[in-house]
């Protein structure tokens, strides 16, 4: 479904992403971990057209999407959340979510259809009660959920999540995990960047570890926590302790 080939991105002298390759099959749930500054967000920006790679290629469903603007990539069926939340602050929660349905998901001219299409994403993320609240007035956790709800409204086949649990309370993490499981079992392919390692371990079928822009390791969650290089460079200590 998604094939990342030798992707690199340099900022001046800094190689933020360096020769990263990754293949994600239809229906997979792939986790991406790595310390701050490892290049995770940059990788996501490269895939979704916010940045142009210095070299390498990205294929989605067999076709290259490098050079396409983000809205075309969205139309192709890729949804994404932002680590640094970007709500439409003056719009209500409902209008935020409807926008995704209007221009990408349902791709309709009818506000009525879009409003209906916004129901399920709001319900899944627990935002229904806040539908008329201006997005700018939400808590950080709620804004993260709104990111997810908007992305869902675009009806993606591939969903990229960038630290969607950051700022969400402990109790809500469990709820969101349940939501992600549900979305995944409905057939959506998911690539998830997450700081909370235990979340990645529990949800992912496969994990990629990035460090200094390079792929350090790729394998099953079990293999990742046992890999010496990963423990040394990233986890720093056995996972059983507190990985968050």
């Amino acid at each position, binding site marked *: 479904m998604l094939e990342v080939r030798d992707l690199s991105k340099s900022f001046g002298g800094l190689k933020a992403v360096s020769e990263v390759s990754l293949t994600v099959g239809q229906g997979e749930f792939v986790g991406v971990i790595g310390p701050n500054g490892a290049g995770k967000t940059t990788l996501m920006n490269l895939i*979704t*057209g*916010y940045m142009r790679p210095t070299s390498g290629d990205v294929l989605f469903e067999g076709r290259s999407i490098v050079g396409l*603007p*983000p*809205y*075309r990539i*969205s*139309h192709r069926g890729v*949804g*994404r959340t*932002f680590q640094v939340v*970007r*709500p*439409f*602050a*003056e*719009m*209500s929660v409902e*209008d935020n979510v*409807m*926008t*995704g349905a*209007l*221009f*990408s*998901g349902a*791709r309709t*001219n009818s*506000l009525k259809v879009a409003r209906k299409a916004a*129901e*399920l994403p*709001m*319900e*899944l993320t627990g935002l*229904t*009660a806040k*539908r*008329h609240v*201006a997005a700018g007035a939400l808590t950080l956790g709620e804004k993260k959920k709104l990111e997810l709800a*908007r*992305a*869902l*409204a*675009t*009806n*993606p086949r591939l969903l990229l999540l960038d630290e969607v649990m950051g700022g969400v309370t402990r109790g809500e993490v469990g709820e969101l995990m349940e939501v992600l499981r*549900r*979305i995944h*079992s*409905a*057939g*959506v392919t998911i690539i998830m960047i997450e700081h909370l390692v235990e979340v990645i371990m529990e949800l992912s079928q496969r994990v990629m570890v990035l460090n200094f822009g390079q792929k350090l390791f790729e394998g099953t969650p079990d293999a990742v926590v046992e890999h010496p290089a990963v423990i040394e460079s990233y986890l720093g200590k056995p996972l059983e302790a507190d990985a968050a």
Partner: protein
Amino acid sequence: MLRSPYFMVGLGLLSALALVASTFWNAPQLNDWLFRISTLIILATSWNLMANAGLVSLGHSAFWGVGSYTAVLAANAFGGSVLLTFTLALVVGGVMGALLALVTGSLKGIFFAIVTLALSEGLRICALMVPEVTGGAVGLFLKQELRPSQHTLYLFGALAAVGSVVVAAVIAGSKLQFASRAMRDNEAAAQMLGIAPRRQRLIVVAISGAMASAAGAINAWYGGYLDPEVAFTLHNTILSQIAPILGGIHTIAGPVVGAVAIIALSEGTRIWLGTMEGVSQLTFGLILVVCILFLPKGLVGLVQGGPNRRKPTPAPRLPLASTQGAKP
């Protein structure tokens, strides 16, 4: 009651009717004020459309001026009627808006504003430099024999003003409104939701440009005379934004209320303090500044009070147990 949408729509319809009806009444001074209010409503509504999409125009007099010249030149050259030249000005303004959108690409904020300002100043200078077309600084008269009665123009202005507000209302209830607001708040995020910013911007600026140009065209018929200073006066650029800001930016009623308030205020201060030229203008300016400083939501916000929110409707419960609908 004031917040009920039916009340607002009713009030709008009644005002529209009153404005149109007033043109059949022979009261030259009142007619003149209402005509100026009408053209200002169009100009302000046009400015507000761009502002709604996060595009601050400092060059609305460019559209106004081009529309004015379109009307006068077309009328003089081939005897075009008011309706014909009005339509022509709509088209020319729309094309000009589309070009502006293309040229400015993804410029936002102050950069976009500066380009629009340069456009209107540039056009003013161009108009001065081609005296064989525009009459240069000497100016240009619309052929007297072509001019319809003032009352026809009052009516035309009133209908056009109502039309511009209707267009704004239709847009406010459309997909374009969602794209505009999303782009205003965060263009990058808007793209990930499938919004093509340049395309949406082109549509908005073209509609806005067409409106402002048409307002200029009607006004040129009314004035009957043009020179580059009159056509591209900065005054219109300033009024085009003060009216919506004073009335209530990003609202439909705002530009209308603002236009009425500005004409009332400027005429009021002129009549009461007219003997002291400077004092009346100073008072006008002071009141404007105070209003804008203390009414962030404009006069409309004052009436509506509180945050402008829809009434919460009970959320339909969805069968969460079944996830078929999740994301097929």
